[in-house]
């Protein structure tokens, strides 16, 4: 893999792998214990109530039950990252399959999909996802089982970008198939599948890999947005409890808790405490940021190495043929307006 020679790609990958493996290792090694929501010092004096302040033992404080927040976040990492991986991979597989169909059907369908999917510019992608997910998860959540809710969330997040993505992949394939060596392969007796596997896929795979990583970044961003729209991706449970109110009359509170400690779920769950204990919201947001930085580092490493290899090829060509493009004195506009 030439990408491993790029330090930024390597750093990004290391961060993600460390987070994931740390998360799995923690849940394997974790010993079951019920946390106490009151903190005592050595003499047995009560010093704090959950959520605790930050201290040496609790670098990020604790949640309302007294769980150390660092471990809560670490435990959530595998759900968030695992979900991102699941969605990204299913998106890519589905898009590749759809792009095959797009290559066969008349080209105006591709154009039509392209034009209609421009509506995704007129609202954040997360709003589109929200409109499809929220009926099952928020508005009519009483009608759907946990499994259905999870399946809907996954399917919506997967299908949402398939139109755009498959058109993009179909365009890449049709550009590639105009190359001379691919046009001549059927003449030598290569079947469709053979040509695709042996000739198109090797040229396409770096682009597909880049698209995959970019899609992962985008999925992560959507998950963070959905958290702020109060959608629990990793399952939730509602707890109703009654406390004496100000004037003595009991007040019933209903709170929703994230089952899996998934980062987005942690944001939603602690949103009511944002002004009281901002660290409970900011820490998961920072986790999202860390992952998205890692993914962007990977993307920049990959593009750098692709550019590097393509300039190397160009250099070889120019030295062998010595054909320099004739310089024109006219101020030529580069990007044509797409009006």
């Amino acid at each position, binding site marked *: 893999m030439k990408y491993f020679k790029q330090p930024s790609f390597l750093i990004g990958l290391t961060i993600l792998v460390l987070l994931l493996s740390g998360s799995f290792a923690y849940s394997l090694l974790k010993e079951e214990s019920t946390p106490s929501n009151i903190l005592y010092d050595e003499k047995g004096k009560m010093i704090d109530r959950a959520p605790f302040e930050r201290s040496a033992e609790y670098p990020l404080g604790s949640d309302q039950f007294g769980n150390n927040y660092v471990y809560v976040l670490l435990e959530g990492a595998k759900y968030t990252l695992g979900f991102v991986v699941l969605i990204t991979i299913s998106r890519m597989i589905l898009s590749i399959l759809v792009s095959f169909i797009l290559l066969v059907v008349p080209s105006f369908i591709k154009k*039509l999909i392209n*034009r*209609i*999917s*421009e*509506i*995704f*510019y*007129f*609202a*954040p*992608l*997360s*709003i*589109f996802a*929200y*409109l*499809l997910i*929220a*009926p*099952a998860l*928020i*508005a*009519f959540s*009483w*009608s*759907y*089982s946990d499994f*259905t809710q999870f399946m*809907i969330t996954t399917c919506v997040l997967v299908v949402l970008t398939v139109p755009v993505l498959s058109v993009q992949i179909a365009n890449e394939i049709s550009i590639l198939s105009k190359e001379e060596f691919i046009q001549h392969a059927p003449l030598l007796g290569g079947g469709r599948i053979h040509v695709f596997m042996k000739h198109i896929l090797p040229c396409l795979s770096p682009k597909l890999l880049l698209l995959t990583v970019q899609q992962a970044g985008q999925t*992560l*961003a959507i998950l*963070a*947005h959905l958290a*702020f*729209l109060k959608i629990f991706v990793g399952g939730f449970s509602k707890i109703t409890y009654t406390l004496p109110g100000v004037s003595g009359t009991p007040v019933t509170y209903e709170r929703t808790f994230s089952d899996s400690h998934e980062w987005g779920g942690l944001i939603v769950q602690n949103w009511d405490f944002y002004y009281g204990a*901002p660290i409970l*919201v*900011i820490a998961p*947001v*920072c986790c*999202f*940021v860390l992952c*998205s*930085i890692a993914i*962007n580092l990977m993307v*920049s490493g990959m593009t750098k190495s692709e550019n590097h290899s393509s300039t190397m090829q160009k250099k070889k060509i120019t030295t062998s043929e010595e054909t320099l493009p004739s*310089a*024109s*004195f*006219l*101020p*030529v*506009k*580069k*990007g*044509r*307006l*797409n*009006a």
Partner: protein
Amino acid sequence: MIKTAGKLLSFFLLSILGILLFTSLPVLIYDYSVLMNNTRLIDTGQLDNNSFLTNSIQFELHAYLQQLKFTVQQIMDLTQTTYYSNGSDYQLLPAFLEVYPQSLSFFMGGLLASLLVGISFAVIYMIFPYHIRLIIKKIILAIETLPDVFIIILVQLTVIWFYKTTGLLMFNIVNVYKTEAYFLPIFTISILPTLYVTKYLILSMEDESNKSYIEFARGKGLKSIYLIIVYMLKNTAPSLFGQTKTIFWILLSNLLILEIIFNIYGIMRFIAEYGVENPHLAAICMIAIFLPFFIIFATGSLLIRKLDPR
């Protein structure tokens, strides 16, 4: 000219069609008539226990077409449009006109601010010597990849921290009754679009500065600031217009998070709150967001076509 107008018309119609088709999708996969009926019963207190209610995913093409028809009818007669919330139906227009102008002013202000500041940043950037430029470019590219959620929380925390240490409240952070905050929201949502504009312009201007006509002009002894503004900016700025869609999209995505974190009741939260139970409302809101964009886009592309027939 006519060709451009035709393209714009088809763009307009297809976008509206796309919005209608998409916002009616929930009706296709969920059994809305039953679900809404149950919601009404629960909200009005006629149904206490909802644990026995179950429903599944379906594929109801007929209901979908009905919903499309219903949405179109509702859009045709906006004064009569109602939306359901919490047990009763409300008129759309008073509530909508409360949230829409404010959000509109935010994203128009944001678009203007990000274009102006972005262009001036790019010009200032080009004046710097080469090695400083490399550092600035790296910083811009790094900040640009940060998620919008993070940037907006950061701005809010900074303002709060500033208030705590100095006792000076620079701007209204959240909307309190009748004192509307304008500067801070517009500033916050235009940070990322500004960086995007700056990035796009500096990349294309650096590309432009390697061209032979710039080198020729430099050889003639023209001042570099004159070159930057008169030649490079003039030749790259029109291509920025093609990026309006992306800038607009970044702005909207920022606006959503801004409205949630700064507790501003705007169009994005309006969609999120009522759009789920009323698919036609989501369609109306999205068309309301699309229209100003389309007006800008159409005038812009007609203007450019006229100034530069190429």
